[in-house]
């Protein structure tokens, strides 16, 4: 179904898409750092953000805690859960069992969902607005505080992560661990501590994205799953062993999806994303798809 495609409406839609794309990018940042250090894909990663947001909602709404206290406790829970996923499950997967991390984290996805449904409930809830209800009009486009915060946060996080990885000794250690953990360990890098730190930071990123998505939509035990699907798609197209390229793809994916939904109809957004994968695999230069070291941090 088509739409009235006047410039004002399309700009509003693209702005919304840019904001959502930035949320994809921040979540993908968490996926990237984990993959680059531990070579694992965490299916339950979106649910880590859900634990923070649904738990935070419960603490604020049902238990009566001040919202900021609830958000801090929720974020701490996300850090703990994500670290525990690595410590309890991923590290114990024996070498030479490719794909087992997918199965294990898929199980954890279901476990976290069931636990939160039991502990909280199966309903959808409104979350703290976090600025999404305060807005101004800029050039005919309604811009909320939440939108600006999301975009600024993305720029800051990506810049900090990039500088950290390329300009600091910590970044050198991380890259060395990612390249070959055994050699890095022999060179004095505490690989296990680094890995634990990376999973913890990824947990925090999941919590932040979980909060921001919940503030724009609502929160329940499943609301992060469609977000994680798009994040993996961006990672697949951009390459999980690169840094800036997949993050850029994530942002553009949000814009592309919003544009497709606006121009072709609301139900066209998701099919358009999957069509993009096929097109990307078919037309992207083989060199780009195969080259590991290019564009890396």
């Amino acid at each position, binding site marked *: 179904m088509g739409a009235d495609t006047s410039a004002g409406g399309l700009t509003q839609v693209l702005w*919304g898409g840019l904001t959502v794309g930035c949320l994809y990018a921040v979540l993908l940042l968490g996926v990237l750092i984990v993959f680059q250090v531990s070579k694992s894909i965490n299916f339950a990663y979106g649910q880590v953000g859900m634990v923070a947001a649904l738990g935070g909602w419960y603490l604020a709404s049902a238990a009566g805690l001040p919202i900021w206290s609830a958000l801090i406790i929720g974020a701490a829970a996300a850090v703990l859960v994500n670290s525990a996923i690595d410590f309890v499950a991923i590290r114990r997967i024996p070498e030479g069992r490719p794909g087992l991390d997918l199965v294990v984290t898929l199980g954890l996805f279901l476990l976290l969902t069931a636990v939160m449904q039991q502990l909280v409930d199966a309903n959808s809830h409104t979350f703290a607005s976090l600025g999404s209800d305060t807005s101004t009009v800029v050039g005919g486009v309604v811009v909320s505080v939440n939108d600006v915060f999301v975009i600024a946060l993305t720029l800051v996080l990506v810049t900090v992560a990039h500088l950290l990885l390329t300009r600091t000794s910590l970044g050198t250690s991380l890259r060395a661990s990612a390249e070959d953990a055994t050699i890095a360990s022999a060179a004095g890098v505490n690989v296990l501590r680094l890995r634990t730190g990376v999973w913890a930071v990824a947990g925090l990123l999941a919590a932040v994205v979980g909060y921001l998505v919940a503030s*724009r939509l609502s929160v329940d035990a499943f609301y992060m799953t469609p977000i994680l699907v798009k994040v993996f798609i961006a990672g697949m197209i951009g390459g999980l062993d690169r840094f800036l390229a997949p993050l850029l793809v994530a942002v553009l994916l949000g814009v592309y999806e919003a544009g497709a939904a606006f121009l072709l109809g*609301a139900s066209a957004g998701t099919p358009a994303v999957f069509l993009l994968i096929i097109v990307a695999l078919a037309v992207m230069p083989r060199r780009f798809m195969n080259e590991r070291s290019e564009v890396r941090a």
Partner: protein
Amino acid sequence: MGLRTAHRRARLAAAATGITLLAAGCGGATTSTTGDAAGAATTCDPKAVGPGVTDKEILLGTTMPLTGSAAAGGLGTKEGQEAFYSKLNKEGGVQGRTIKLTVLDDAYDPSQAQKQMRQLVERDKIFAVSGGEGTPNFLGVVPYLKRQKVPAIAPYAPSDTLGNMTNPDVFMATVDYIQEFDLLTGYVLKQGPAKKVALVGVAGNVGDNAKAGMEKALAGKGVELLYIPETPGTTDFTPIASQLKQSGADWVFLILTNADTGGLLQAVSRIGYTPKTAAWAGMSDDSYIKEFGALSQNMIVALETASLASSNPKVQQFVRDFKAETGQEPTKFNQLGWVQAQLTTEALKRAKGLSRGCLVEALESVSGFETGILPPVTWGKDDRAGVDAVGIGQIKGDKLVVLEETTSSGK
């Protein structure tokens, strides 16, 4: 290196595909059914005994979404049925037998519902299907129930596919979305002139039915209708909100999940658009009003069940009985579950024997049966609709105000 990269990309593809399948499973899909009018188990042999019936017990079953994005409705409906049968069994049961109810989780997924229903019919050997909740998942089991000639009583699965002799084994007790949106739109038009209205509905049978109902009510009125189908799990509602704003619709009608209704209303508010809204009966549930009431002020909603605050003695009796059984206040979905069990029990009471043919005969004898919760229920030889009326309410503050008691579409 190339092989390692290819291997990794294959794993990524598998990861993305797996999550997508999982999401699809949680979100559900739309299935439609067709068929001829033959097939209901209509011959009553009073001496015959159907599957799942012993001297002491009658085994009933159904599937509902007990996990996943639609679990709230399923869990509430299950609780309502269980409370009714618990009370019934304490009072001695029906036909000298207690009721054993088995409810399996279909996660709102038609394929999962089919698998679970097969298990209920073939392994557990249930006598009949008592209620159910969710349209796409229930539509997924309808062809199987038709083949097996298993009666299904009062599932909450509004669809034009059901409630008629295309599927004679399914006895409905709620209007379909065509009727619901016909009546809802008719009410809205009576409130004042409108040049353009919009509908945002779940893509597939649900949204199409709502659209058909609105088109019926708008026929000849010169009011333009914009229909936007939506797929559950939308991550950005700005495109839909912008389309609505640009259309300048006087009214926006909604038939979406609670979460997506809340997400869309947030996006509409974010871009500074404030249309009048009207929505399907799901928005009359306390769980919706409690969470999204602030976003839904003055929303007009269809009412499929009586307000829990109604002075109707039967409604008040239900509230007391439910609280006595569960220790908690009932919700709309508890009401639905309760009335599903009540109608199933009424048919069992009327049955001349405990065969499926006798159960169908008993169901066809139900006429103007008052539950207090639903409009009077009537089925017949060629009538599977049950009811043809909805009420109208409005969300005011954190309350639902009843504007009109049930009104018949006169079909």
